[in-house]
């Protein structure tokens, strides 16, 4: 496992739906990586994790390394990129339209 390096965002899965969540700047969980709060200090991020990891709301809270370019936040590892964008990015249309389902 690569050593964790800042900047990072805080991510988790929603307890009710399992959906990928990010801790946002307005102190609530959001579903888009682009809306996540970015932390340049791992210590600060860890403190925030302790404060927001409410087991009645989220599970599997973790710090996720990102790259920030202007307003664009991108996951550094492809696993997190897939978590952020969802499966099926290679989906091809079916000849009957709608038969392909892996989305």
């Amino acid at each position, binding site marked *: 496992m690569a050593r964790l390096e800042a900047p990072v965002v805080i991510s988790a899965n929603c307890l*009710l739906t399992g959906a990928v969540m990010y801790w946002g700047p307005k102190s609530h969980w959001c579903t888009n990586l682009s809306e996540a709060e970015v932390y340049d200090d791992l210590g600060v991020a860890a403190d925030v994790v302790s404060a927001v990891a409410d*087991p009645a709301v989220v599970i599997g809270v973790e710090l996720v390394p990102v790259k920030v370019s202007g307003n664009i936040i991108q996951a550094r590892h*492809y696993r997190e990129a*897939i978590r952020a964008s969802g*499966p099926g990015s290679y*989906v*091809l249309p079916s000849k009957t339209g709608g*038969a*392909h*389902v892996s989305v």
Partner: protein
Amino acid sequence: MYRYNDFDREFLRERVAQYRDQVARRLSGALTEEEFKPLRLMNGVYLQLHAYMLRVAIPYGTLSARQMRGLADIAERWDRGYGHFTTRQNIQFNWPKLVDTPDILAALADLDMHAIQTSGNTIRNVTTDHLAGAALDEFADPRPYAEWIRQWSTDHPEFQFLPRKFKIAISGGVSDRAVIRAHDIGLRLVPGMEGVAFDIYVGGGLGRTPVVGTCVFKQVAVGDLLPHLEAIVSVYNLHGRRDNKYKARIKILLQAMGIEAFKAEVKDYLQHNNDVFDGSELSELTRIQDDFQLRALPPREGGAYWQQIDTDPAFREWVTRNVTPHRHEDYASVTISLKAHGQAPGDATASQMRAMADLADQFGFSELRLSHQQNIVIPHVALADLPAVFDQLSQWDLDTPNIGLISDLIACPGMDYCALATARSIPIGQTIAMRYQSIEQLLGPLSIKISGCINACGHHHVGDIGILGLDKAGVENYQVTLGGRSGLDTALGEKMGPGFSEGELMHALDRLFDRYLMLRGTSSETFAETVQRLGTEPFKAALYGVEHAA
């Protein structure tokens, strides 16, 4: 098919009520996630990358049209309108909400289905030949024994916390279509003193340390089967390693103990489990067998079938690829490909599921099967009905004539879904299927099996071509193995060398197939036969772009 009785139904109702209470307590905060996780896993509820996933067992791959329709209803009501059929004869729903899972399990119970023991260190879904009861080469129908084992292993009080998960497969044909030697226990029905007996293979498994199972007990009588299974699993339960999950499977124990010592311990155990098995289990087998009497199929003239074979090339091609001879000459088994080119292998929409259920009702005695190759089978279809079946399948994108060809590949969910995966496998499969569509007939029978991590759910070790996706310094990397085989002569593929990026992999496969077409002895020599004849070296050279003198 096995018919649930009142006991079975009451058992499921109680389990659903128990689980509903567990979910309520988790949501109220009475249970922590740490306490709840093993409880949900015991009911098949995983947390994957993007959502929860519910894995539902399709015991020995057999389901009724009513059950298939019920799965379609679940997919639409509580998921995203599709299901994913797996390599272990399960169906997975990839997007259920936790709060809905008790209702889904209740709906499954109404269908006489469940998700019990589809996770955890227990005995998992017992799998078998998808052509059971229909195959020409079948010696005995394995399904009654599979159901018997299912009943013995479900909620078995001793075997809920084994060192690791435990998989059993059973086969009753001359050919092994259940990959029994890649299972913790593989059972093969053979002729015996009382009609049938079992050869018991132990210690097979793929994953991090792939091992081909060894025949440890031969000619075990039917009455001695459950005592043997109980003894084998008990010895494993006692001695299997619990300190290292990578060394916890029975294959590692068997290697560590040695086969003779293992056998001796099993035999010793057999001496004192007589009181567990008093013979009543044999009357239960008799009851089960009544539900699996081979169907008396009425004679049917071929009629329209022969006409259409002569006049319709698309129908002829589909029959050649997707239709298997049946023990009754007027019938055949139809394999419905869930591998339309570019489709995620094993996925079916709710509409497709209903279409397949309708076909089974109309033409197939309401019975369907799921193969470990992630396709659906209607086992008993009259030849005369095949034109109508083909016509209806084509309306649902289910008529792809590719069984056994390169696009009929199997792939685990990989990193598109799975929390354990180290690389994606579905997109690799989709790309391969599209890329070689135009030459797949030319390439002929060829199995590609893709796993997105070392756990090998895509069975990559036993493919003609195995592809294993790994994370190499933060980049997806795909290792290739060649020469794997499933069946009674199961062989593990040979790892070729350094892995490829996704783009490099496709170019490497281009060169590999060029080399095969150049080297094959005749146009009917399969890829596997050519690799066996010449060894892997010329193909390895092709993969890495090295010129070869052959």
